[in-house]
């Protein structure tokens, strides 16, 4: 089912991180959920900006941090929900917010600080773990979690190939 469940790469500038996000964004479709995990400054928002670009969100729309509003919505080739659980104390608060509506089968959902709401993530999603290795150097580990249609998984692995070192 999954030709390669985990892949890793290193970027050396915010521009590279954004380009990787953009490549990734082009491969996503309705119902996909991308869980971003990593510390402050690890590159999650820059990557999310790239994803939005790849999903066809207009450059006039600033994909700014949703830490305060918890969710920003953008119009791309599919609706894009950019969720951030940074300010939530617990999964219970996410439940109280009616989070199910953000895992919209018609849109793509990007969740920052997804580790805080792990048990609420849909069975099938993509996890990306960010690690700051040094000034401007970031490691990203991509994992396809759950049962992915072979074709889409293959496309993702192939398109990310140039960026990735398989593990």
């Amino acid at each position, binding site marked *: 089912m999954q030709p390669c469940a985990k892949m890793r790469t290193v970027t050396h500038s915010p521009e590279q991180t954004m380009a990787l996000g953009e490549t990734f964004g082009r491969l996503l479709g309705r119902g996909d959920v991308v869980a971003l995990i990593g510390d*402050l400054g690890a590159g999650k928002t820059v990557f999310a900006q790239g994803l939005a670009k790849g999903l066809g969100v207009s450059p006039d729309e600033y994909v700014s941090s949703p*830490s*305060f509003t918890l*969710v920003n919505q953008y119009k791309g080739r599919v609706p894009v929900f950019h969720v951030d659980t940074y300010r*939530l104390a617990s999964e219970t608060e996410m439940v*109280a917010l*009616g989070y199910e509506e953000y895992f919209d089968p018609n849109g793509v959902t990007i969740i920052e600080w997804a580790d805080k709401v792990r048990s609420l993530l849909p069975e099938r999603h993509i996890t990306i773990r960010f690690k700051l290795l040094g000034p401007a150097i970031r490691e990203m580990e991509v994992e396809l979690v759950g049962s992915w249609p072979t074709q889409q998984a293959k496309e993702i692995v192939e398109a990310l190939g140039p960026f990735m070192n398989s593990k």
Partner: protein
Amino acid sequence: MMLILGIETSCDETGVAIVENGRRILANEVASQIPLHARFGGVVPELASRAHLRVIAPLLRSALARAQCSLDQIDAVAVTAGPGLVGSLLVGVSFAKSLAYVGRKPLIPVHHLEGHIYANIIVDDRLRFPFVALVASGGHTDLIECRESFKYRILGRTRDDAAGEAFDKVAKMLGLGYPGGPVIERLAAQGNRRAFAFPRPMLSDSRLDFSFSGLKTAVLYCFDDLRKTGDVSERIPDIAAGFQAAIADVLAEKARRAVVDTRAKQLALAGGVMANRALREAIRERAGCEVFAPPIDLTLDNAAMIASAGYYRYIGGHLADMTLNASPNLRLSDN
């Protein structure tokens, strides 16, 4: 005499206020104050719309009691229609609609940022159109040209983190807790602002947009480097001072340019970040024009500012009907 009831639930503060003729505050109740937490039996959970729902009716009763008036005496209901968190906004909008419908009162939609700007008009009627407003909070960093009543033009906004968000996140990295604004301001006053040279993002860019994400990361690198060499606790005031100075420089310089570009004669400061006195002073020094700033409690989210903006909208005939809905992405130019 006209009494406007204002309702604000766009984020994590529930606010109900009663304001007379747009400027005289009779009641301004906010459900994040400590006495209110005690009265409602616990801390209001952050951002949960259910928390708004729980406190909004008791807050209305307490506002009416404080203003010594009855619901019948209220002339119109003003409510924040957006932007904000949809679930939170919905509580306020539905509550306002119910009151307006049952009491047959006019319903007035107000933009949250417009409310922040009108906080200045409550306290000082010398502010005259056209002017420039700098709204900086946990969720916004916007430079806005206010050309005439309810005619706005966005001159610049943040491309990533809001200024208040940068304060909160840097405070968290430094282990200073939440919210970050007050504690960083206090520590910065004891530190040397020149000890660390943090970047001034977008300062060399001629546009009036902001970006604070890179500044946050620069503070992180600096802090991590120091940590490797030993005890950093005594350097935290210097880091706080350097960080705050970088934010001050960017806000002050962009505001100054906005004033020059628009030929405005006045600058109005608004939003929770403007509760920071050092930032206010830095902007005042550099603005090159008269600078207005509301008292601290009116820079934070509150409903008096919504009632005030609502009063002026009412006079201008900008009313809503029962189809009014919460608009999480409402733009200033939309309403």
